[in-house]
């Protein structure tokens, strides 16, 4: 099983101009403690919306790679996004799902992936052309390295340890937005 903070530190260390958007779960804190960047967009409370935000960004900015930090609970709330993303096929999208089989941020209640649901198989069934299931740091590193170079859309299904997350506290939503948009020269 993968330690998300280790894996996230590895990935963030590789990033240059890529954009990263998160779900509202603990992944946003692990992303921030792996390396706060202007090009990180932290999601305070939009349930399920990480993948859709990522798709919108990937459509608006095809020249930039867009990385989604999704969670099992978050993706389960927006499964239709798998079909929409596969249909639209944004080559610059890397959809990472950190699967800890629980709603960790609300006290660890089990999600469906704690039972029989396989999100990687669902992504494959939806039509994602590149699906990797990774359970070790080395496998994550190799999948992430490829995804940063090869066209997607990628789906990287990370089976991770369920462990407490350090950090917490985020800038205000509008501060996050303005910093992010300024970094990529975007105007409304």
């Amino acid at each position, binding site marked *: 099983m993968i330690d998300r903070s280790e894996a996230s530190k590895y990935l963030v260390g590789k990033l240059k101009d890529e954009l990263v*958007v998160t779900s*509202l779960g603990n992944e946003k804190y692990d992303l921030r403690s792996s390396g706060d960047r202007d090009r990180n*967009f932290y*999601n*305070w*409370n*939009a*349930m*399920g*919306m*990480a*993948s*859709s*935000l*990522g*798709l*919108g*960004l*990937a*459509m*608006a*900015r095809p020249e930039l790679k867009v990385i989604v930090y999704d969670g099992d609970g978050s993706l389960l709330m*927006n499964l*239709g*996004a798998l*079909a*929409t993303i596969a*249909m*639209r096929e944004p080559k610059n999208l890397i959809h990472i799902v950190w699967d800890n089989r629980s709603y960790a941020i609300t006290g660890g209640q089990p999600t469906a992936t704690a039972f029989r649901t396989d999100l990687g198989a669902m992504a494959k069934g939806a039509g994602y052309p590149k699906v990797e299931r990774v359970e070790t740091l080395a496998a994550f590193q190799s999948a992430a390295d490829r995804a940063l170079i090869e066209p997607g859309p990628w789906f990287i299904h990370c089976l991770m340890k369920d462990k407490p997350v350090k950090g917490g506290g985020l800038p205000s*939503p*509008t501060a*996050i*937005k303005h910093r*992010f*948009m300024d970094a*990529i*020269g*975007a*105007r*409304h």
Partner: protein
Amino acid sequence: MAWAESIVSVLKKYNVRFLNYVPDTKIEKILAAARDLGGFEALPLTREEEGIGIVCGQSLGGGRGVMLCPTAGLGNSINAVAALAIAYRIPCPIIIGVRGDLGEFNPAQVPMGQATQDILDALRIPSYRITREDETEKMTEGALRICYASEGPVAILVTNELAGWKEGRTKK
């Protein structure tokens, strides 16, 4: 110009490129006008909430998109509107094909249709009901102007007074 052409020409004037939609009969008229005019990308969705996330993502990237859906779909999208478009101040135009209002045949459309204005008002979302063809251009343009000025969601309601009601199999 017919109402759907008016809407689409204003969208183009304001550099809206992405038409993210869950279809209904009124929305299809807008999509058809957009296909005729050209220069848009239409993206069909599985659910309206997704569309709000996508419009917000497009907006954060410096692109412009709209969400097109029927009134029932507004109900499917509300937390995303609140937690993204309002909380982060992201322009998010929502063009709503009104159901559950004047001339409705489907009893299950009526509750959402009648609640739509209150839902928009409860969230302080500026909303504009277009009822006449000759006001369509001005209303659409005005709605987009306040949307990009205020950086938040705005609703444009395409009413049955404007676009007609859907014929359907009534109760018997």
